[in-house]
């Protein structure tokens, strides 16, 4: 079973003459253990794709299944629960709560959801990301890169089956960016997750199993490393 399955989904805004197609009719699936990159310029429909994939909004037509559950048929409350349980977002705008220390960011997730990482896994995660000494700090005291890494840790902490990342390496230097991607790839493989990241950084695609481009709302597969590899 695919972790994410998008069938005949399209998204249009407005109607009649002013109708805008943000996402053309799309077929897409992400399997366990796949790290997928979606590359496109800004305004291409990347964000629309990501929000539909994550069950944040419904497509105009078609359906979206996350781990077999058809989220397009659910109300906001149920979708919200599925997002909490199944999806980890790494957002471009830092998704940290400004008045919580790094440690409390994780405690907040413990308050709203069970089945998060245990202390040992969490310590290992923070170490991998190089943020183990920042736990007492508030987001305002962190650099852009540190914030991004905390955001990544936060997304992984809830053990989601689907990770959706919007420019996860935007504010990281090259070395750190490669490290983060390697870590995401490793996490994806080891724990059988599916990770989709939207990026414009072509250097990162070599770590990805599949690479899509998106132009004017049309999604197309450009390389499938899984098939190239022996």
């Amino acid at each position: 079973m695919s972790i994410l399955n998008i069938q005949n989904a399209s998204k249009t805004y407005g109607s009649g003459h002013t109708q805008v197609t943000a996402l053309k009719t799309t077929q897409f699936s992400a399997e366990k253990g796949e790290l997928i990159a979606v590359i496109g310029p800004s305004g291409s429909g990347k964000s629309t794709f990501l929000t539909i994939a994550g069950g944040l909004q419904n497509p105009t037509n078609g359906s979206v299944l996350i781990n077999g559950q058809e989220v397009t048929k659910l109300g906001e409350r149920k979708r919200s629960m599925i997002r909490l349980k199944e999806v980890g977002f790494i957002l471009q705008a830092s998704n940290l709560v400004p008045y919580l220390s790094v440690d409390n960011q994780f405690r907040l997730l413990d308050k709203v959801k069970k089945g998060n990482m245990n202390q040992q896994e969490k310590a290992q995660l923070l170490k991998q990301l190089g943020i183990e000494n920042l736990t007492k700090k508030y987001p305002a005291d962190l650099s852009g890169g540190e914030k991004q890494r905390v955001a990544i840790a936060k997304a992984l902490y809830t053990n989601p089956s689907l990770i959706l990342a919007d420019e996860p390496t935007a504010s990281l230097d090259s070395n750190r960016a490669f490290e983060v991607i390697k870590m995401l790839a490793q996490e994806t493989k080891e724990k059988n997750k599916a990770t989709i990241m939207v990026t414009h950084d072509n250097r990162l695609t070599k770590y990805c199993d599949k690479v899509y481009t998106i132009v004017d709302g049309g999604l197309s597969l450009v390389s499938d490393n899984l098939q190239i590899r022996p």
Partner: protein
Amino acid sequence: MFLAWNEMKSAKLRFLLIIGVLTLMTYLVFLLSGLANGLAEMNREAVDQWKADAIVLTDESDMNLSQSSMTLHEAQRISAEHKAEIAQILAVARKSGTKIKESVAITGIHKDQFLMPNVSEGRSFRGDHEVIADDSLKADGLKLGDRLTISSSEQKLVIVGFTKKAKFNAAPVLYTTIATVQKIKYGKTDTSDKGIINGVVIRDPYFTKIKVPSSFKLTPIEPFIEHMPGYTPQKISLDFMIYFLFVIVSVTIGIFLYVLTIQKVSIFGVMKAQGISSLFLIRSVIAQTFLLALFGVCAGFILTAVTGAFLPSAVPIQLDIPALIGYGAIFIFVAALGSLFSVQTIVKIDPVQAIGG
């Protein structure tokens, strides 16, 4: 509670200011309630001391004791087991040889009936012209043995004792014999059947069974107090101010939290995108209001207690702790009600917009 508390810790100044406003409002509510209480007490404390259940006055008097008059014969015919005859005249008493003047309610009673007050200082009146005075008069410079000249009367009175809590419609009471009151009122005493008094006070929980002639009216004690000149308008005005303050509190904290919520729309949006429910966020806003109001009420309470300890006795503020606790609880409740303004905003936040989708 987790989000609420951590946010308050990280933005101390902002939340201290809000608590400051709530503290001042609580303080005002508490002082007003104390004032309402104190003013009510000034009107009714003498009547409360009587521990009476009802009073018989003439129908004509419209429940006004000094306007009612009946003969002793009529009074004696009222068939109640525990009853006490009362005569009263409102007058101005002047301490002889000085300019100290005071409006007083000179009240004639029988020593052997239940209206007789407990003497806290000095002794009881033995004959006519001797009075037991309300001890609030001591603050005005009156003491045992002082002679009093009564306005519009040749009669001189002498203070032989003091009693506590004896104000009738804000006037200190001078308890004396019925004959003395008659002397001041009519120039002569008349203790025969035809002698005039003002009314009969009844101590009997089953007073409704007592029959009185049609020209008389049996009034339960509470409406009698409420009918005192000024008592009800005063009480209603102060109560209205207190209730209105509660509305202001609710709206004020509502505005504060609404503005704070608007500021947090994007971060709430991100949290909703992550799957944190609106309910969790709403709960945290209400919890925050609860904490703010609780701190405000506690600080207001301390401030009120300190004020109460230093208040001069001339200020008619009486703090009633159970009433203050009640008002404090209402205060916290209406504050929480105010936070509900923000609920709709939180529910409407669209996570897609919040993350720039």
